[in-house]
């Protein structure tokens, strides 16, 4: 199952301090839904304020992005720029 890591502290208030989870999901949308089911409010936090790094590549607002069974997913603050 894909492994999800919360990199920063801001989302840990939803997880009781837990930072690593295995999630049964093959897309980012399903991952977010599953995390929100386990930790209510975390889904909204990811939707509104976080980027998803999948095996080192950064995805933002990408429900359709695919996850492999051995994917490493890191949740980081959303990125803008100048």
């Amino acid at each position: 199952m894909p492994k999800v890591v919360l990199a920063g502290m801001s989302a840990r208030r939803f997880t009781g301090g837990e930072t690593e989870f295995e999630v049964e999901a093959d897309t980012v949308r399903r991952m977010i839904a599953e995390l929100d089911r386990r930790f209510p409010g975390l889904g909204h936090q990811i939707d509104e304020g976080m980027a998803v790094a999948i095996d080192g590549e950064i995805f933002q607002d990408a429900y359709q992005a695919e996850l492999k069974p051995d994917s490493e997913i890191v949740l980081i603050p959303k990125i803008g720029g100048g």
Partner: protein
Amino acid sequence: MAYDGESLKVVGTRPIRPDGVEKVVGRANFGADMVMPGMLWGKVKRSPHAHARIKSIKTDKALKHPGVKAVVTAADFPEIASEEAFMGEGPMNFRDLSYNCMARGKVLYDGHAVAAVAATSQAIAEEALDLIEVDYEVLPHVIDVEDAMKPGAPVLHDDLFTQGVEPKPSAPSNIAKRITFTKGDAAAGFKDAEVIIERSYTSQPVHQAYIEPHACIVSAGNDGQCTVWSSSQGQFMVRAYCAKLLGLDMASIRAIPAEIGGGFGGKTLVYLEPVALALSKMTGRPVKIVMSREEVFRGTGPAAGGVYEVKLGAKKDGHIVAAELTVKLQAGAFPGSPVGPACMCGLAMYDIPNVSIVGYDVVSNRPKVAAYRAPGAPNSTFGTESCIDELARELNMDSLRLREINAARDGTKAAHGPTWANIGYEKTLQVARGSEHLATKLGPNQGRGIASGFWFNIGGESSAAVHINEDGTATVVEGNPDIGGSRASMAMMAAEVLGIPYEQVRPVVADTASIGFSFLTGGSRVTFATGMAVTQAAEKVVVDLKKRAAMIWDISPEAVDWKDGKAYPAGPNAGSFEPLSLQEIALKSGRTGGPISAEITVNAQGAGAGFATHICDVEIDKETGYVKILRYTAIQDCGRAIHPSYVEGQIQGGVTQGIGWALNEEYVYDKNGRLDNAGFLDYRIPVASDLPMIDAVIVEVPNPRHPFGVRGVGEVPIVPPMAAVANAVADAIGVRMRDLPLSPPKMRAAIDENEPPRKMAAE
């Protein structure tokens, strides 16, 4: 599909930009160039206080002034509830955005807008500003970031409680947020270290210093339809923010992008457009507002400044085993500094097993910060890359060697979490190592500094259309203002796919009613994301062109090849036909199915990370404290340069702005918190005569996510210069300067402190 670098005919060449002539001869229409019949002039009244309660605003005298048609204050805007969203270029609270456009209840910085007038001339509007009476209760203010964090500091917002700390604070403060990132065990790592170095660095907020001030003209019709012409980094951003701040439907607003005279992140917010729209709705006439340079400095967002505490632990062989980074970043009057990227970028260049990073987002009585190239990254990187240089000196090691030993590479787990893939940082170090610049010898009072930097780059939502015209030329329509030559890049990618000359493709930046949504121009995203949309639209057109040729030849579309702008039979079995050019197919398009065009929307993902390494030589005039940049080489992984000249231009521009940040730029406030240097005479940005030619060296490690291998380019170049310059100064005079800018007075003080007093001639 991916395009092979060897076979490219247009991509990688250096044609003239399509907007170049109009700009050179002064005919391009910028924000202030637009005029309309019956137009009124708007002006904004601004606070003279850094922090004050607004007891009352009386507008009756101004309204009675002949020629004045309307006055607006915050009371004329809908009161918006606090609502956080990630819009524009970072976290956004619409209530704060509204309050920033027009103060409500309190003013939070010198220059904060409190009212605006619309009048028949600029002079009358100016006169009316003086007739608006604002009664203030002046409050204590705070400018400095660390002062703002102290207990007992004047608090800007009664409802601001620090996020990210447990338990939730019981009292409000100026610290909006605390964030952390950890990797491994930093405390254990430092126990294992043989050399530990701990330093603190500061940099000042600096303005993006775009040459064109903010300007707009807005017309609200009697039918409720509104049109906004303005200079911004995103017409869709302008439309969304105006709609939100005035409670309008987006469909009732058409935002038309003007040419933009520089943005660099500073035009990813609105200041004037909602105000002009409110005035236009009130008067039923078009309203034009143009900021003065003083207003730009006093009323619009600078980049954040801050304090960066860095601790590095290493083995004597140069392997860094632990790092700590604390970032205290100025947000200005409202929360939202780029503290997240600052924390994530500062150490991203290195493979360090144990890292602890803490960041603070801090408000103070300054204008709300706005994005500026790679927001946050130059700040923290000034600290970390200066400290890397100090560690190298402590280890008696060449600092480039220290970077080579610890460089992040594919498979390295970054301190902020992700595992790097397809990155070109080591390549930039290799090019630096082999550069002729590094081999040249330095003279007296000269020094050399090296620094590296990282920026994420982003993708996101973009729309583009490719239309084939009846004569076989093509029009490319995009939704992103061109702030760095992107029209040329779009045309080149379309020309490459279609197989026609660049000159036969005309790129157009369209308004919000003429192309699908496109996220704003920023984050180094346009050539990557909008370029992806253009490429896919052109590919879709090629599929159609093959179908049309097949129809003319009466064969299967699968039996048609497309090459060099012509349709060919795929092989002998397809039949024997003379090639059909795009022009010939276009001419018959009416008979083969109608107009040939395609529009594509994408949400581009996987923008490749950008890394750079810079080498800077300086010479110090010990009499005056002047730091002369002798030579500067910027080496950057750009994925693939679509138009190398414009990539080099981005690199040179970013470096120049970084040098200004390092050497001269800062806001000077008086004891009352009023800005003393709101103009380019007193706020010194580098000009051409200050600098040598910046040597831009393009490294190409293609990004596999983009059909041409593109990575973002425009932001990384501003990340290393502050540390590169400071490291060069330290090398030249043997004194470490940790507080920017390295202006002549500070340089003189540092030189005097470290050199024995010279004997006077008479002694």
